[in-house]
């Protein structure tokens, strides 16, 4: 667990209802409806809190017939607060984390459920968007222009601009009308 994860965990735990959920899960594993009944909250509110707890690694879930059963992730709570505070991140890790957060924010701002809202004017942001679209392509595979257009059109109607930008930014190569994804370290 790095510093950012520790902060996320503390923020998540700083909520009365989520603490109540954890208190219940300490005694036994439970499903959403049972927790809702016991804590007098709606099932959707419980689901919301459980999702948050799951995202910081405080709880885990498993399918059991019709229900999703939630249980506490004991190893997280077995560490002392001192252990968690002692967690340090190197400068390189902090920098990487900053970049990842920025990237995540750009993607969240420009994509709505996988669709690109608009093409960013700023190059740095546009590059992030193009790299995100590139994830839909396979390495070591050749694509015709039509195939490329179809893939990009799933994200945005202006597939021509995006295709040209991807070639311009060296994300895709183009030789005799055949496109290939360029390998990089990102």
């Amino acid at each position: 667990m790095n510093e950012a994860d520790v902060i996320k965990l503390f923020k998540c735990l700083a909520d009365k209802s989520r603490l109540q959920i954890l208190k219940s899960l300490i005694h036994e594993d439970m499903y959403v409806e049972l927790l809702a009944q016991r804590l007098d909250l709606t099932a959707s509110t419980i689901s919301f809190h459980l999702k948050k707890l799951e995202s910081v690694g405080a709880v885990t879930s498993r399918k059991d017939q019709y229900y999703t059963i939630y249980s506490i992730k004991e190893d997280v709570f077995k560490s002392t607060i001192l252990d968690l505070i002692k967690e340090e991140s190197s400068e390189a890790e902090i920098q990487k984390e900053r970049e990842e957060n920025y990237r995540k924010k750009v993607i969240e701002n420009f994509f709505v459920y996988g669709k690109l809202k608009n093409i960013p004017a700023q190059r740095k942001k546009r590059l992030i968007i193009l790299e995100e679209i590139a994830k839909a392509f396979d390495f070591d595979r050749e694509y015709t222009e039509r195939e490329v257009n179809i893939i990009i059109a799933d994200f945005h109607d202006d597939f021509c601009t995006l295709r040209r930008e991807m070639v311009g930014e060296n994300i895709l190569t183009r030789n005799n009308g055949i496109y290939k994804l360029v390998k990089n370290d990102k």
Partner: protein
Amino acid sequence: MNQVKEKYISYLDKKIGEYNRICEIYKAEDRKDEADFEKIKANICDIFKTLFIRDTKELEGKELSVSNNKNLYTNFLLRFDTIPANWKLSLAKAIAYGDVKKQVIEETKLAVAKELKEQFISILN
């Protein structure tokens, strides 16, 4: 018309006050996310209150016949279908993409709109 207007606005004010009060309680109890959901409920009531006042204001001072009254109420009732239409779409997308936060927000908005519609119909009757 005035009686319906007064009753409904008073109902909406009561609901707004109630949601805001619960919101403050949740905040004090360190239940920020649930406090936000209560705020959303209050905001939905506020939206319908604004629209209701605007719709009734348009006819203020006019000699209203029974048919005009009915027309106003029919138009206002339609708002309970038109406004939440996008919320329903948004909810369907949230469910499809497993976006639990959005799902809870859209469900909350739809539940409040449904309650406000039912109350309006009950006042009319």
